[in-house]
């Protein structure tokens, strides 16, 4: 045997040892990392979360800042070339007002004579980063001396910047999802835990109640609760009420999972041993029973995000969820309810892309996690 083969033998051996000694979570991570689609989805989602968290910095303007010079204006795509030649740095052309030859309405058209170059970390509106740190710097924008704003994704009927609004909406919609999922997780833990641990009559009653909640169509149910919100509530109150409503009825699926898993292991030796040792139920569930299926719970949590997001979007879309001046994906899409909007201001649909991408990403990550957590399950 030559030295070289010996070398590879030992490294292979080391790799094997590493594999056998890796913890469950490391193994899941390794398998998840191999899932290309899920990794991609995770990065996209990561970007979305970052943009949402630092919305004040990423968005060039505030969500309700109006640009009366550019109403229902089309997206301004930064470019490197125009009729006047090319440049190394991206720029947008200036705009000027003209009358539409047919309708005689005043419209904004690009003015090829003027170039405005893009700048990073520009001075702009003063904001508070994360609501705490005051700054007036924004990620990108035009030179503050220029009397023009840049609207990457156009503006709405009030001249508000769709890009900025979408970024702020991302924060709202994702955070509602996160808090909603957390609330329903806690409820599922308590309800599913009680049902699965105590079994018997308690379980039967809880099953009945769960059945009733599962059987009511969820959006009409949410709508009923949302309709009850007093009209005079502030946007913050409405926001928290919404997360509560979404969380309050999102638990049945997860609770059932926890219940059935608990039921299946409640008579295992180690659980009985803990019970005989006099440990309290909450402690037994948390320390001895839950860890054996944590990975499944995580998968279920991830795949319940899309329902939260879609529900919020749907409710706000029909005017029963968040209300302007709040911005969420659903609120933004309220402006895009008609075929007319598709024809005349298609850029108002950009928030819909965010909805689709976020939901897809959560679903793909959920699938990837499931495969990683349970290598013997079939992918689909």
């Amino acid at each position, binding site marked *: 045997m030559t030295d070289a083969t010996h070398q590879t033998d030992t490294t292979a051996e080391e790799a094997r040892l590493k594999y056998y000694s890796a913890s469950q979570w490391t193994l899941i991570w390794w398998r998840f990392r191999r899932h290309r689609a899920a990794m991609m989805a995770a990065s996209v989602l990561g970007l979305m979360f970052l943009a949402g968290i630092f919305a004040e910095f990423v968005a060039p303007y505030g969500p309700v800042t109006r640009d009366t010079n550019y109403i229902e204006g089309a997206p301004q795509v930064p470019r490197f070339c125009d009729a006047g030649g090319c440049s190394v740095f991206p720029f947008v052309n200036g705009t000027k007002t003209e009358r539409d030859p047919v309708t005689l309405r005043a419209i904004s058209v690009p003015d090829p004579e003027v170039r405005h170059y893009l700048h990073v970390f520009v001075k702009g509106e003063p904001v508070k980063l994360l609501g705490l740190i005051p700054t007036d710097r924004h990620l990108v924008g035009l030179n503050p001396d220029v009397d023009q704003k840049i609207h990457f994704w156009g503006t709405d009927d009030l001249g508000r910047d769709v890009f900025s609004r979408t970024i702020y909406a991302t924060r709202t919609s994702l955070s509602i999802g996160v808090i909603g999922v957390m609330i329903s997780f806690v409820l599922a833990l308590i309800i599913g835990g009680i049902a699965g641990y105590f079994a018997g009559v308690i379980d039967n009653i809880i099953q*009945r*109640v769960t*059945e*009733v*909640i*599962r*059987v*009511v*169509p*969820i*959006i*009409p*149910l949410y*709508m*009923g*609760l*949302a*309709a*009850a919100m*007093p009209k005079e509530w502030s946007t913050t109150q409405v926001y928290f009420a919404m997360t509560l409503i979404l969380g309050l009825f999102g638990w049945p699926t997860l609770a059932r999972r926890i219940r059935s898993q608990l039921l299946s292991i409640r008579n295992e030796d180690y659980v009985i041993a803990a019970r005989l040792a006099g440990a309290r139920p909450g402690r037994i569930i948390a320390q001895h029973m839950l860890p054996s299926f944590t990975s499944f719970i995580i998968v279920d949590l991830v795949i319940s995000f*899309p329902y939260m997001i*879609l529900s919020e*979007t*749907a409710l706000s*879309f*029909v*005017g*029963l969820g968040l209300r302007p001046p709040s911005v969420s994906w659903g609120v933004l*899409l309220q402006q*895009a*309810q*008609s*075929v007319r909007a*598709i*024809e005349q201001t298609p850029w108002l*649909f950009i928030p*819909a892309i965010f*909805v*689709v*991408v976020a*939901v*897809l990403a959560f*679903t*793909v990550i959920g699938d990837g996690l499931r495969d990683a957590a349970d290598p013997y399950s*079939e992918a*689909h």
Partner: protein
Amino acid sequence: MLRFTLERLVGMVITMLLVSVMVFLIMELPPGDYADRYAFRKYSGTGVNVTEADIEAIRRDLGLDKPMLLRYFDWIGGIVLRGDFGQAFAFETSVAKVIGDKVWLTAGILFSTLLLTYIVSIPIGIFAAVRRGSAVDYGLTVFSYLGLALPNFLLALVMLYFANRWFGADIGGLFSDQYRDASWSVGKVWDLIKHLWLPAVVLAWSAVAIQIQTVRATMSDELNKLSVTAARARGVPELRLLIKYPTRLAINPVVSTIGFDVNRIFSELPIVAVVLGLTELGELLLRAYLDLDMNVAGAILLMLTFTIVFMNFVSDLLLAWLDPRIKLGA
């Protein structure tokens, strides 16, 4: 079978009772009560000065001063005994009148959607299972992801847009202008059918995406069963074998989730109705919520949920009929 049916029937009634309690609670949820809102609606802007005593009088007239439990029994009793869902204040008439033939329109939408869902998803799911790993199979997986991710109102808008471009203008809604307010006739029914396909496609979309994957998964399992190999080893022709053995079992999960599909359709209905301009219960429900016309909203929510509970019952029976093992196990 009789025992099984009775058991499920009792279960259904209990669930319906609990559902009615929940719906009643939702009706009671908005601040103020019916009398407040009635008075506000009727007299605001008319210059009439409404006193607390007037409202109290309305309240007494309608029996709203009774304790909650009694009010619940009044309400559910009226529904069960007299088919009386109470007053709809937005229209100053009874809830039953407001709802009217919208029940049938909704049923039409529901069943055309269900039909479409199963006609499309079952054969495609089977095909995907038989051709596992083929390009078609992967394409369907991608479609399923999209089916989940695309919000239905967006799909409705896009469909509406293309329908407008390709088939001319009058495609939204449930009727053409000429029939909208006409009384029922053969022409009107035909007109309805011509309009039903669009909401059916939009509403079936996500259900189809999910059911294709369900059928595909169970069908793949079933295809690997020994009983299929055994039947093949007996010389049963392939197509007949496919239909008789694995397919029969692969549609079980579809049948057992009929209730869920109805639930999903009703859940999407109010939103899709807004975009497509459908005049059925979902749209009425949304309007009732926005007006806080809770008698109407409660009635509709109750009808929708009872339909789901009933469809669950039907699906249990169908399942027992499809799979003889279920009756024994119960």
